[in-house]
C-alpha cells in the first residue's frame, strides 16, 4: 500500500501548493507598500481610509439586517410547513433552491426592470427603496443556506409535541416561535447567519448595479486604482470568510454538548 500513500500524499501536496501560494502571494504583496522593507503600511492606509470605514460599515449593517430578515422569513415558514403543510414542503424547498439556479445578475436585472422609476412599485427611485431592494436581494441569495439550515435543524426536534406542550401552557404563536422553536434551532440559524454574512459582506453585482457604495464596489474600485491596498483588502476579506466558517464549526460543535439526550 506504499504506492497509494505516495500518490495520495502527492495529490494533497499539489493541492496545498495551488491553494496556499495565492494566499501567500496576496499576503506578501500587501506588505510591500514601503520600498525596501516589509511593513503593514497598506493595512494602515486601508483601515484609516474613510471610504473603507463607511463602505465596510454599510455592508456590515446590510449583512446584519439580511440575517435578521432571513431568520424572520425562514424560521416561521419552515416551522409552519413542518407542522401544518408537510405536502407543501417540496414546493417551498424548490423555491429556496432557485437562487442557486438563477444567476444573481439575472435576478438583479429583473429587479431593475420590474421596480424601476416608471413601474408600479418604483423602489429604485428612492434611497430607502433601493436599500430595501438590495436587502431583499441578499435575503434571496441567502435563502438556500438559511432556509435549508433551519429546515434541517427542525428535523432534529419534535415540532408537534413542543407546539402542543406550549399551547396547553397557554402560549400564542409568537411566543411559541420566539421562546420554543427559535432556541431549539438557534445553532442552525447561526450557521446560516455566518454563511450569509460571508456572502453579503463582499458582494459586488447587486450593489454595483443598484449603485450602492458598499464594500464590494469599493474593493473593485481600489483594484483598478491602487497597487498594494487591494492585496491588503483581499487578506481582510479572506480573514472574514475564514472567521465565518470557523464560527459555523464552533457553534455546531458547541451544540453537540448542549443538546439534551433523548
Amino acid at each position: 500500500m506504499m504506492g497509494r500513500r505516495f500518490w495520495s500524499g502527492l495529490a494533497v501536496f499539489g493541492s496545498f501548493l495551488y491553494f496556499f501560494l495565492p494566499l501567500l502571494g496576496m499576503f506578501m504583496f500587501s506588505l510591500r507598500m514601503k520600498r525596501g522593507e516589509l511593513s503593514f503600511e497598506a493595512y494602515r492606509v486601508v483601515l484609516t481610509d474613510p471610504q473603507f470605514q463607511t463602505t465596510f460599515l454599510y455592508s456590515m449593517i446590510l449583512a446584519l439586517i439580511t440575517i435578521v430578515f432571513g431568520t424572520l422569513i425562514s424560521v416561521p415558514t419552515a416551522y409552519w410547513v413542518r407542522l401544518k403543510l408537510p405536502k407543501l414542503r417540496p414546493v417551498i424547498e424548490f423555491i429556496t433552491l432557485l437562487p442557486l439556479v438563477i444567476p444573481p445578475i439575472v435576478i438583479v436585472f429583473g429587479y431593475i426592470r420590474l421596480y424601476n422609476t416608471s413601474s408600479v412599485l418604483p423602489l429604485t427611485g428612492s434611497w430607502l427603496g433601493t436599500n430595501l431592494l438590495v436587502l431583499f436581494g441578499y435575503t434571496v441569495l441567502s435563502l438556500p443556506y438559511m432556509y435549508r439550515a433551519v429546515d434541517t435543524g427542525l428535523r432534529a426536534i419534535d415540532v408537534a409535541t413542543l407546539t402542543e406542550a406550549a399551547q396547553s401552557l397557554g402560549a400564542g404563536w409568537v411566543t411559541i416561535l420566539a421562546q420554543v422553536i427559535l432556541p431549539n434551532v438557534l445553532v442552525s440559524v447561526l450557521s446560516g447567519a455566518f454563511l450569509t454574512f460571508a456572502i453579503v459582506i463582499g458582494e459586488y453585482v447587486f450593489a454595483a448595479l443598484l449603485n450602492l457604495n458598499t464594500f464590494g464596489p469599493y474593493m473593485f474600485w481600489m483594484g483598478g486604482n491602487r497597487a498594494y491596498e487591494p492585496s491588503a483588502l483581499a487578506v481582510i476579506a479572506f480573514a472574514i470568510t475564514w472567521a465565518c466558517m470557523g464560527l459555523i464549526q464552533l457553534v455546531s460543535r458547541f451544540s453537540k454538548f448542549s443538546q439534551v439526550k433523548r
Partner: protein
Amino acid sequence: MPAVSTTPSGARRRASALLTWAGVLPFLVFAVLFLILPTLNIVIGAFRSPDGHATFDNIIALFSPSILAAFWVSIKLSLITALLGCLAGFLLAAAVVLGGLPGWLRGTVLTFSGVASNFAGVPLAFAFISTLGRVGLVTVLARDWLGVNIYAIGFNLLTFAGLALTYLYFQIPLMVLIITPALDGLKREWREAASILGATGPQYWRMVALPVLWPSLLGTAALLFANSFGAVATAMALTGSNLTLVPIKLFAQIRGDVLNDPHLGYALAFGMIVLTGAANLIYIVLRMRAERWLK
C-alpha cells in the same frame, strides 16, 4: 335540514384552512415578488419586441456572431473549469478519504474547502494578481530563482487560461465538499468482495467504484458548470473587459454602456437561465440516481 347544519362547520373548516395557508403567505409573497416575478419578467421580456408584441427576434439575435462568441467563451470556461475542478477535487477528496493519510488532514481539507468555495469575487482576483500577475510572487520567484519569465513563454493571467486557473480556486473545493460524502458511501465490503474475487486495485475502481460514483461525478460537474457560468465579479475584477463572457456582456448591457437594444439584455439573461437551469436539472436527476447506491 342537513344544509343548515353543515354550513357553519364548513365555513369554519374553510376559515381554518385559510388560516393554515396564511402561515406561509409572507414567504410566498416575498418569493413571488423578489424571486419569481423578476425572473419571469426577464423570460417574458426575451420573447417581446420593444413595442410589446410577441416575437422570437431577441432569441434570434442571440445567434449573431459576437453574442455566440461570448456564449462560446463562457461555455468553454465553465466546461473546462468544471471538468478540471471535478478531476482535481476528486483526486484530493480520494487522497484524503481513502489514501491512508493522517486523520486530521481530512477535517483540515474539508474546513478549508468550506472557506475557499466561498472565497470568490473581487478578493479572489486580487489574490491571483498578486501571485501570478506581472509582479506577482510566483512570477518574480520563477524569474529570480529559476530564471524563467513565465510571461515571456506565453502565460498571462488576464487571459482565458488565467481566468480558468483562478476559477478553479472555488471549483475544486466545491467538488471536494460534494464528493466526500459519496466517497464515504463506498462500502469497505465492496472492496473486500472485489479483492476476494481476485480484482486488482484498478479493476476495483473501473468495475465497482467508478460505476457507483459515476452519477455523483457527472452531476457535480453539471453543478460546477452552473457555478462558474453565473460568476461575474471575479472575471470583471481580473480581466476587466478583456474577455467577453456572457455575464460580463449582460452587466455592460444593464449598466447601459452598450445601450443598443434592452431586449437583447433579456435574451442574454434568458440564455443564461436556460444553460444554468439545464445544468442544475442534470445535477438533480443524476443525484437521485446516485442516492440509490450511496445510502
